[in-house]
């Protein structure tokens, strides 16, 4: 049995009389010790999917009309308040994008970590355990740092404290929602290295959410690319990065700037992610798709397993693979 199994998850936001669908039929599994990355642009529904795992999206305005989130076989969406409290920060821990906004500015970082210990492992709510956790996430001289306030630390250090706090309850699943987006590139490299190291040492599962395909290569076992509330491609990480099948994945990869191509135009994806409530008919990517056919605006494509373990939501994927990246794509 997988640690996490999301089955046909649908999430609506109620706005007046209208229901706006943010997540539309997302299904994936996450095994113990596995790392899955959810990739997509802002507004594609990746963050609300991740927050749903501990039912952290407030209901209302959110409504779950269909779907199951099975965590160790139990449906999170049917859990009561007390059960939810024990899994939040217990079996599932979160790290968020902006560490300076996630830490409480008026408490010392040591006490904030201890709070998580008190809730989930009361026997270990000691300074020694806090120091051990800070050492685990690579904070130098943790003995003196536990009395620091968040503002005394840099962004990278704060994110390490957030990770230490998330690890305090010895979670089975760590959900990292854009953990490095607010950080500098050199610090981003440090934090990704730390997550990779923790994954190896502690053997926990990680669900990493990012918009940058460039940072997933080292850490991910499997990738799921989301677009407009749906998974459009899912495959083992190496397989997808080497040979993306969906035109959206391909475009996303080409839009990452690479070194050694000075003064060249980037392969931008024209247009924007459709806003929720104004989804195009047929395939949701067709207005921006470089290989769109005339019937793409009519037929709704299904997510199909085209190769073992490789799922794609595009009937014309062989064309996407054959197509060369266009250097002069119009903006």
């Amino acid at each position, binding site marked *: 049995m997988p640690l996490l199994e999301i089955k046909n998850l649908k999430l609506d936001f109620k706005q007046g009389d209208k229901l706006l669908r943010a997540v539309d039929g997302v299904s994936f599994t996450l095994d113990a010790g596995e790392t899955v990355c959810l990739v997509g*642009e*802002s507004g594609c529904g990746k963050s609300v999917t991740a927050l749903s795992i501990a039912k952290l999206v407030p209901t209302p305005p959110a409504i779950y009309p269909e779907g199951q989130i099975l965590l160790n076989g139990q449906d999170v969406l049917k859990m009561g308040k007390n059960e939810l409290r024990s899994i939040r920060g217990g079996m599932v821990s979160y790290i968020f994008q902006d560490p300076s906004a996630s830490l409480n500015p008026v408490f010392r970082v040591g006490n904030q970590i201890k709070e998580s210990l008190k809730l989930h492992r009361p026997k270990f709510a000691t300074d020694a355990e806090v120091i051990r956790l800070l050492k685990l996430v690579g904070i*130098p001289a943790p003995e003196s740092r536990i009395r620091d306030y968040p503002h005394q630390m*840099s*962004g*990278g*250090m704060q994110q390490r404290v957030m990770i230490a706090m998330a690890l305090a309850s010895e979670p089975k699943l760590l959900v990292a929602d854009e953990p490095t987006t607010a950080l*500098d*590139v*050199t*610090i*981003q*490299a*440090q934090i990704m*290295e730390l997550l990779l190291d923790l994954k190896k040492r502690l053997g926990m599962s990680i669900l990493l959410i990012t*918009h*940058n*395909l*460039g*940072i997933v*290569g080292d850490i991910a076992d499997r990738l799921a690319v989301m677009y407009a509330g749906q998974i459009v491609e899912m495959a083992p*990480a*190496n397989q997808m*990065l*080497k040979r993306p099948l969906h035109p959206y994945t391909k*475009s*996303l*990869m080409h*839009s*990452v*700037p*690479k*070194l*050694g*191509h*000075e*003064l*060249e*135009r*980037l*392969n*931008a*994806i*024209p247009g*924007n992610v459709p806003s929720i409530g104004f989804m195009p008919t047929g395939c949701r990517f067709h207005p921006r798709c470089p290989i769109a056919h005339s019937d793409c605006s009519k037929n709704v494509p299904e997510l199909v397993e085209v190769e073992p373990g490789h799922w794609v939501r595009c009937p014309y994927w062989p064309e996407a693979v054959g197509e060369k990246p266009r250097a002069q794509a119009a*903006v």
Partner: protein
Amino acid sequence: MSLLEVKNLKVHFPVKHGLFSRVKAHVKAVDDVSLTVGHGETVGLVGESGCGKTTLGRAIIRLLDPTAGQVFFNGEEITKLKQGELRSRRRQFQMIFQDPYGSLNPRMTVGQIIGEAIDIHKLAATPEARRERISSLLKDVGLDARYADRYPHEFSGGQRQRIGIARALAVEPKLIVCDEPVSALDVSVQAQIINLLMDIQREHKLSYLFIAHDLAVVEHISHRVMVMYLGHVVESAPSKTICRRPLHPYTQALISAVPEVDPESKRKRIILPGDVPSPINPPSGCPFHPRCPIAVDRCKVEVPPLREITPGHWAACHLAGTPAGVSGTKVGGPTLG
């Protein structure tokens, strides 16, 4: 003559403390930086947060008053100009800001935001001419002319950044200082904005000072790249050279930190330990030595000057160009080339 010339610019902020606000120390945000930007040229400025790159950009167009040094724009020194004189010169240099949410007034329509600059510099004689100018500016940045009546909250981040660009273009500037214009955007939108900036540069013959922390982005758009660390320029070279043959160990670490999509690339990652030190109390000698993988004893005491190692390629490292230094061979792995 180059369009912009900056000579030995210093920006120090006093740190006040205690009774009577005594000045205790100085934050040397920018310390002795010189640079030039030619006509139609893009100079990239890279570094981590807190290295002084934004302060430098702001001091150059005098949103901040520099402590020392000179800035020449088209041969005229602008560091000594009075506010009134400065206002008329501001038409020639504009800025695009990082946060597309914070830099547009939420109570003004897009037309008012762009029109304000046109009014201040009296660039449109009649209301029709003004409206026409706003429409054509919106078209230039890839937006619909009808958007002029909408408010900023109706737009996505990428579209807002386009509005910011249109506002900067409204006064027909010669130089635009772009302060992290794409770091708040998604990768796909980031690519759109970079392409747009390159198109506009060609059409309007603009010069850019492009500030960012992502070397891959900077390298894509710039002719020349300068790397800053703790208020100092540590390396400066044409963008082609800096990626293929970086001489400073800090530049090399920055290059290795660029995210790489290709799983096959066996690029060696150099993970720098620690953070950028505080500019209030910078390390002795070379400011980079506490994090430097190849530091020797000399680095702890002696500040390395910026030297021209090969023609056009400057580096501030004692070991640059010597066998003990960064070899100067390519480090980027197979994707370079």
